[in-house]
C-alpha cells in the first residue's frame, strides 16, 4: 500500500542485539517453563515478548524498503509460517521419541525459518522482488513469529510438549487468537512509526508495549489451565503501562510541537 519512506536507512540499533534478545530470551523462557508452575509460564510469556521485539525490528528492516503490499501482509505471512512451523515442529518432536521432546521447540523454529526462507526466495527468484534483505529479514521474522507463538502457547499450557499445547491452546481455539494477536504485536510498531523520521528506539518501545499488552491477554487465556494466570496478566499490564508511557514520552520529545486541538471555535470568534 503505502511506500515506507526511509529506503532501508541505518538502524539506530544493532540488528544483532535484537536478534540475540529474541533468540536467547525466547528460548530461555520456553525451556524454563517446566521449572515452576508459577514462574515458568511467566518466563515463557516474557520470552515471547522478547521474540515480538525481535520480530518488530526484523519487520522494520525488511519493510523499510517498501514492499508495495503494506507492512501487515508480511506480518500475516510470517505468523502463518510460524504457526505451520510450530505445529509441525512440536509434532515432529514427538515422532523422534520422548527423549527428544526437548528438541521440539528448536525444530519448530528451524522449520519456520526454512519455510520463511523458501517463501522469500520464491519472492525474489520467481516473482522478482528487489529487496536486498528480503531473504535474511524474512527468515528472522518467521523465526521470531514461531518463538512468539511457542512462548505464549507454553505460557497458556504450562509446558512445551505437543500434547499439552494441543489440549489447552489448539483444541480451545486460542491458536487462532494468538495468530492474529501476535501478527498485530509484531507488525503494528513499524506500521505506526514508519516514515522518514522513524527512530528505531521509539519503534521498539512501542513493540515492547504491544508485546506486553498481548502478554496480559495471554494471562487471561491461561485462566483455565494455569494457576499463575493472574501473575502473567498483572505483570503484563504493569509493564505495558510503563512501556507505553515511555513510547508516549519519546513521541512527545521527538515531535516538533505538541498541541491539543481543543473543541471547535465558537461562531462569533470567526
Amino acid at each position, binding site marked *: *500500500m*503505502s511506500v515506507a519512506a526511509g529506503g532501508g536507512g541505518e538502524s539506530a540499533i544493532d540488528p544483532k542485539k535484537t536478534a540475540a534478545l529474541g533468540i536467547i530470551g525466547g528460548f530461555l523462557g520456553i525451556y524454563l517453563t517446566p521449572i515452576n508452575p508459577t514462574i515458568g509460564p511467566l518466563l515463557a510469556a516474557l520470552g515471547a515478548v522478547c521474540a515480538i521485539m525481535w520480530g518488530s525490528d526484523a519487520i522494520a528492516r525488511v519493510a523499510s524498503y517498501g*514492499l*508495495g*503490499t*503494506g507492512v*501487515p*501482509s*508480511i*506480518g*500475516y*505471512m510470517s*505468523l*502463518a*509460517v510460524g*504457526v*505451520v*512451523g510450530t*505445529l*509441525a*515442529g*512440536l*509434532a*515432529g*518432536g*514427538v*515422532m*523422534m521419541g520422548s527423549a527428544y521432546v526437548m528438541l521440539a521447540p528448536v525444530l519448530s523454529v528451524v*522449520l519456520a525459518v*526454512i*519455510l520463511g526462507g*523458501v*517463501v522469500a526466495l*520464491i*519472492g525474489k527468484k*520467481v*516473482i522478482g*522482488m528487489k529487496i536486498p534483505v528480503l531473504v535474511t529479514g524474512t527468515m528472522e521474522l518467521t523465526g521470531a513469529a514461531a518463538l512468539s507463538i511457542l512462548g505464549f502457547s507454553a505460557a497458556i499450557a504450562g509446558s512445551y510438549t*505437543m*500434547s499439552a499445547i*494441543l*489440549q489447552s491452546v*489448539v*483444541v480451545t*481455539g486460542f*491458536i*487462532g487468537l494468538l*495468530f*492474529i494477536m501476535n501478527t498485530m504485536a509484531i507488525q503494528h510498531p513499524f506500521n505506526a512509526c514508519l516514515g522518514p523520521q522513524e527512530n528505531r528506539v521509539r519503534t521498539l518501545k512501542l513493540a515492547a508495549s504491544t508485546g506486553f499488552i498481548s502478554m496480559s491477554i495471554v494471562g487471561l487465556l491461561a485462566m483455565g489451565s494455569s494457576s499463575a494466570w493472574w501473575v502473567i496478566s498483572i505483570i503484563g499490564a504493569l509493564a505495558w503501562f510503563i512501556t507505553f508511557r515511555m513510547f508516549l514520552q519519546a513521541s512527545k520529545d521527538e515531535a516538533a510541537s505538541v498541541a491539543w486541538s481543543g473543541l471547535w471555535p465558537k461562531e462569533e470568534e470567526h
Partner: protein
Amino acid sequence: MDPLLMIGSIAVAGVLIGGGVHFLPVGGAPAAIATATGVGTGTAMLAAGSAMTGLITAAAMTGSPLWLILASGAVGSMLMIGVTMMVGNWVYVFGVGTVPASAKVETDPITKYNQEKYVSPGTEGHGIPTVCFISGIIGGLLGGMGGGLAYWAVYESLVTLPAYAPLLSGNTSVAAAMVAGSFALGLFFINSVIASYNIGGTIEGFHDPKFKRIPKGIVACLLASIVTGLIGVLLLKGGVF
C-alpha cells in the same frame, strides 16, 4: 490418507488460493481514499476475512463428501467477499459520493457501460463496478475451494491417527479439525501474500492488465505450497503420542 496425496492436495489448494487472490479487487491505500478502484484494504485483510469464513463453513461440513466441503468453503468465502464489496460500495456511493467506475477499461466488460466519463479527474477510478464485483466473487469461489481442499486433506489424514481419533465413532475429532483449520489458514495466508507480492499490492480483477502476471504467481504459489505440504507431513508422522 497417503502423505503424497496430502502434499498433492495442498499444492492444488495453494494454486487455487493464489489464483483466486488475483481475481480480488484489492484497492489498497489509494482505494481507502476513493482514488482507485477496489476495496480499500490490502490483500492480507481481504484474504483473512474470506478465508476464515470459508474455513468455518468448510469445517461445518466435516465428515461429508469432498465435493460438499469444497462447495461449502466456496460459498462461505464468496458470501464474505461479496458482503465486503457490497458494503464497501455503499460507503463509496452514499458516503464518499462517487460513482463506481474503473479507469483501467473504457467500457465495463460485463455491462458495456461507459467508464471514462464517470472517473473523477486525477483518480484511477473508485468504488467497485460490476466487473470487479464479479471478479471478486470468482476469487472467493477459487479461494474458498482451495481452503476447503487443504482443510479436508489435513483433517482426513489426521483423523486416522490414534491420537486424533474421534471420541465417539462417527463424530468429528475436534483436535484434528483445529489442527487442520490452523494449517489451512496458514496455507491461505502464505499463498495470498505471495500472490499479493506478484500483483504488486493492488489489482482490480481479471480485466486489469496486471492479471497477465497470473502464471508467475501460480508457479510461485505451487512451489511454496509443496514446501508447506512437506512440512505438514510432520504433523502426520509425529501425531502419535
